[in-house]
Every structure is written in C-alpha cells, then in structure tokens.
C-alpha cells in the first residue's frame, strides 16, 4: 500500500493524461533539489521511468522546478497553489495536539502554504483546509504519523 501510494510531481495532469504525455525522460527528477522525485524503476511498461514522490521518504517543497522544465507539459507550469498533487488527511486520534498531550504544530510550521492549507483552530488545533495541494511535507514531519496524503491520481 505504501509503495503504491506515491504522489505525482506538482502540476501533474490527471493520471491518464499524465501517463499519455510523460516521456519518461527523468528531467523532473534531475532538477529536483530536494531529491524527492524518483523515477519508477522496474520493467512495468506502463509505469517505468515515470516520476513519483513518496512523502514519508522525501516530500515535495513546491519549488516548482520540475513543472517548469517538463518538455512535454505532462507537468503543467502552474502556481504552487494549484499543484493538485493530493489531499492530506489528519487522524485526530493520533495527533498529540488533538489528544491534548502536547502542543506540537510541526505540520503547521512546515506547511509550504502555511496558514492557508493548514490553519490552527482556536489558535491551537491543526486543521487541513481544501487549499491543501498534497505536497506531503506535513506527512513527512508528523512525529505521530497522524497525517496521510492521498494522491490525486486515485480520484477519478
């Protein structure tokens, strides 16, 4: 499950259109300064060489270099607010702040769209809004692994 739950890079078109356009050249992975984009390895002729991001390993920081360089526009050059990679979901039963144990705020502080994608309810409790583009940073930094990013490619 975790292996297949990868995200496409920011600005990726809907999955089917993305695959039809991706040239598998790996330029997005090469310009990624955070080394979060990996090319799909293996021989699967439908996936091999396409870019993927596993947020638990390395999340996307929405620098948007990859979508700027993509030669075939499989990654559209859009502003970071429209990156539409996925949606983060917060499990309040695991979150230490919501459970009332400690004040954590890791996800809120690290969110690239701070105070838009994650807001603090009553100044304390993190809530993920519909501005979230699913970069996976909050999932990566959450000490409780309370956040899971659901890729947009699962939504048809």
């Amino acid at each position, binding site marked *: 499950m975790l292996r297949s739950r990868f995200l496409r890079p920011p600005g990726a078109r809907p999955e089917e259109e993305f*695959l039809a356009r991706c*040239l598998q*050249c790996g330029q997005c992975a090469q310009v990624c300064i955070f080394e979060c984009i990996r*090319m799909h390895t293996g021989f699967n002729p439908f996936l091999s060489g396409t870019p993927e991001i596993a947020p638990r390993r390395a999340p996307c920081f929405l620098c948007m270099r990859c979508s700027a360089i993509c030669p075939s526009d499989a990654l559209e050059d859009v502003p970071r607010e429209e990156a539409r990679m996925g949606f983060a979901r917060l499990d309040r039963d695991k979150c230490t702040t919501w459970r009332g144990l400690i004040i954590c705020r890791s996800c809120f502080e690290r969110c690239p769209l701070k105070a838009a994608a994650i807001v603090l309810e009553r100044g304390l409790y993190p809530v993920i809004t519909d501005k979230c583009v699913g970069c996976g940073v909050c999932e990566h930094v959450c000490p409780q692994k309370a956040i899971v990013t659901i890729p947009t490619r699962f939504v048809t």
Partner: protein
Amino acid sequence: MRRPGIKFWRRLVQFGVAAAFVVIPLLNHLHINVLTGNFLAFRAGPLPLADPLAVLQITLKNFYLSADLLIGAAIALGLAAALGTVFCSWICPYGLLSELSQDAARRRAARRGRSAPERKTGFAVKLTLFVLGLAGFLVFSTTPVLNQLSMPAWYSRIFQFYFEQGHVSLAMVLLVLPAVELALGQRLWCRYFCPQSVLLMCVKLLNPARLKVRFDAHRCICARPRDPCRQACSLSLDPKTLGDAVDVACNNCGDCVAVCKRRGRALCFGFGSHKKNSAAGN
C-alpha cells in the same frame, strides 16, 4: 604517422556520448543541471532535444505538441533527413555495444576462416513492430510503450537510476543483448527490432538528396568474390549493390568508405544519387 580515419572519429564520438550519459546523472546528482534528461528527451542548456518517436507517440495520442518537443524532434529528424540515420552509427550507445560485439564476432569468424554472410535488411520486421506498437498505444494503452523498447533510453536510464537513486536496475540485463548478438554473429536489435530507427529511416527516405554512400563500379578493383567493403560493414550489407533495399538499412557509418580508400576509392560519400558518374568528372 597516418591521419586518423573516419572510423577513429566515429568511435571517439560514440564512446564520448556513451561516457556522457554516465557522467550526466552524476552531475545532476551534484545539482549541476546544465545537461538533463536521457535519450527520450534531453536538454542542453536552453536547447531541447527529443526522440522523434516518443514525440510522435504523444502527439498522436494527445493532439498536442509543446514548443520544446517540436524543436527537439525537428533537430533529430532534420539530421536524419540531411545525413541519413547517423544517429544509429555515430551517437546511439547501444549501436556502439552492438558494433563492438559484431567486431568480436567477425574476428572470431575470421580465425575460423569464415567470412561474414550477406544479410537482408530486416526492415519489414521492424516496420511491422513499429506499426503494431504505435497502433497498440493509440488504441489500448495510456503510456507510450514503444519508449520501453528504446535501447539507448534504457542505457541512459540505468545510470539515472543508479547515480540519482542508488538503485541497481535489473535493466542491466539488457546489456546482455550484445552478448547474444555476439553468439549469433549478427546485429539482431538494430536490424530487426529497434522501432526508433524506423521513424528515422522513413524520414531519410523522404529526402532523395541526403548524404549517401556512392559506388563507382569503374574504379572498383576488387573482383566479385573479394569484397572488403561488405566485410567492413557491421550490418553485413553489400555496398556494391547500393539500391533502395540496402540503402534503407545503411547508417552512413563510413566503414566501407574507409576500407575502400586504401583500395580503389570506388566508394565515397556524396549527396544525392548512388551512382557516381565518372564521365561527367565529379
């Protein structure tokens, strides 16, 4: 000292390109992004390059062509239209491996006192695979599957996987293919399968004034059973019978021209017709 011939320069370019695609992923790993990409799409600073077949596939599928891909594919196709399929003989790293294995097979055959047999071009097999792959992608698939049959792309991808992701790819086994070619004594992939070369060949056939190997029968001093030019051809084509059937497969590598240079100089490069008209004095 003898001046280095065309084969020296060709090998130099081939080894240079093969080495470059080992170094480029390393540089990118160090975040030096001047050269990025692989043999499917490449970018040298501001200059985009692209595999014309990959571009053709996604253009037909999406009815969309970005400026980068248009320029990149136009450069590659323009080169093929002007100079023939020199990509295969001068640039393709798989072509280099295949030629080296072919050289070894020739030496082995020579030790046993056999000469290389003449072979047909195999273009029909290639063309069938090409059409099936293209149609299959357009009708059934979402991914340009012919890209997975690109040997140069796999060559560059192996090093992208290894140096950028630390992943030892099983695709290394594809490098066993030259060993198979060595055992069978012919260039299987380039002759019968490579779908990328089909498009380049089709484009080169559109331009009758492209660079070709010319044969002047009056100057040829090798009587029929002796044919050093055919022995030199890594695809086992016969340069003396240059016609459209042979010319489709000819990559303009120049090995036959180099060999003939030390004999009758009957073979030479020239733009346009195959037959060299000695009487007209050109």
